[in-house]
């Protein structure tokens, strides 16, 4: 359901009479209604019609309501759909079973139209609140893993990405890691001020990202701001000479054009790059090798790329 559109309710009941009675009440309250005659049809309608809520009868032929609910909860796409089930007015066995399986609420048959629409509205409101909370949690996670100055991911983002890559490709998958460090950055801050220092970092971030976005033979590459004037690139499947070539491309991309500071005043920006080759599961070794290589690049005069084996 999007803002301004009516919610769609799927009514799953083997009785056409009950479906018509429920449809009348729901349409009267402004909802769109789709119908299914048993659990199997209901599951298919959940996938094809994408309802916002399901009203599910318990006693049905082919596949009853409890089995349908169980199938929905086992399906990643349908799991979060709110379900209100329809059950007898007496007894609690079906009610307990349905709630244990994950139904949000229940209605006793025969159900009063006013109670029906009130419970549907409540269930949809709860679902909307749940969705909003989930979205806020996702936004907070994004925020906590984003560097506010450059908009790149931060160290936390790289940790998450590394875990996902390990799950997808295995810990022994070959990987290379580059540490890109802005040369003489402290001097920029000290002589030109922190606002220009921040601008330099944003420009470097942009140039690195553009260079990484260029088509190349390598696979997944993740760029994050590691901290201070250091950036890290994790490159899946890229080691040895190919990794050095990527480092060289990044170095040239940053240093190719001086930064215009003011009219007639330009600032040369260069970076030193340390490369570590190894496996994605050996992140500490990769970082250590790249860090050592970066140290050598700095000691060797800066504005260069040096590689170390991190295996």
């Amino acid at each position, binding site marked *: 359901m999007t803002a301004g559109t009516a919610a769609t309710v799927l009514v799953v009941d083997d*009785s056409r009479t009950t479906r018509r009675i429920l449809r009348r009440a729901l349409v009267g309250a402004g909802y769109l209604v789709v119908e299914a005659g048993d659990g199997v049809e209901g599951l298919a309608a959940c996938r094809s019609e994408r309802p916002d809520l399901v009203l599910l009868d318990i*006693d049905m032929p082919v596949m009853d309501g409890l089995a349908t609910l169980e199938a929905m909860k086992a399906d990643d796409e349908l799991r979060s759909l709110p379900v209100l089930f329809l059950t*007898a007015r007496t007894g609690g*066995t079906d009610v307990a079973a349905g709630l244990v399986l994950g139904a949000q609420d229940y209605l006793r048959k*025969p159900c009063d139209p006013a109670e029906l629409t009130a419970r549907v509205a409540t269930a949809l409101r709860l679902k909307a609140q749940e969705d909003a909370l989930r979205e806020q949690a996702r936004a907070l996670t994004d925020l906590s893993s984003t560097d506010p100055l450059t908009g790149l991911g931060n160290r936390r983002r790289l940790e998450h990405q590394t875990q996902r890559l390990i799950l997808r490709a295995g810990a022994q998958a070959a990987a290379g890691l580059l540490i890109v460090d802005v040369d003489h950055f402290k001097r920029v801050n000290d002589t030109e001020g922190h606002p220009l220092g921040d601008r330099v970092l944003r420009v470097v971030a942009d140039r690195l990202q553009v260079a990484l976005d260029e088509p190349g033979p390598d696979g997944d590459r993740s760029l994050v701001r590691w901290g201070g004037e250091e950036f890290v690139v994790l490159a899946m499947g890229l080691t040895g000479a190919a990794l050095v070539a990527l480092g060289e491309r990044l170095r040239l991309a940053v240093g190719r054009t001086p930064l215009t500071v003011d009219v007639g005043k330009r600032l040369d920006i260069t970076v030193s790059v340390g490369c570590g080759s190894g496996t994605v599961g050996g992140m500490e070794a990769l970082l250590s090798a790249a860090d050592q290589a970066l140290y050598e690049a700095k000691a060797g005069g800066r504005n260069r790329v040096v590689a170390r084996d991190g295996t």
Partner: protein
Amino acid sequence: MSSTDSHIERHIEEIGGAIWSTLCDLPFERTYGPGPTGDVGASTVTSLVHIEGTWQGAVLVQLPLSLATTLTGAMLQGEEAPDAEEVRDAIGELANMMAGNLKALLPQPSRISLPAVVFGRDYHLSLVGTTPVARVTFRSGDEPVVVSLLQHPGTAGGPEAAA
């Protein structure tokens, strides 16, 4: 409600009242005495739902076709008179609701069958081997409604024990 009613008869009366008051705006009241015997009358509709499981039996709802048609029309609130298929489905659902609610009062586990609906004149429907547990009569307008609960002998417990 009579003080001599069984627990299950009181439930049948409550459920019937809830169905009538919720689904249609028709008069509905309990009647006492012998009421209709055997066939409710000519042109009768009978809806039957089996209860299977620990407790085995059936729920029967019988009413004249004219009342079944009026009731269906009131439930569906359509502009045209309901056809036979709509009456069949509506009266089947009525027995289904009645059985679903009674099932909860019986020894568990148990489940209900799909409803079977019979239309006809001057017939007598007999479920072989069952004995009546409860028979409750009502009047909706001038026409009778009979709800019966029948039990297969030898099945565990009874509605009174389960209630």
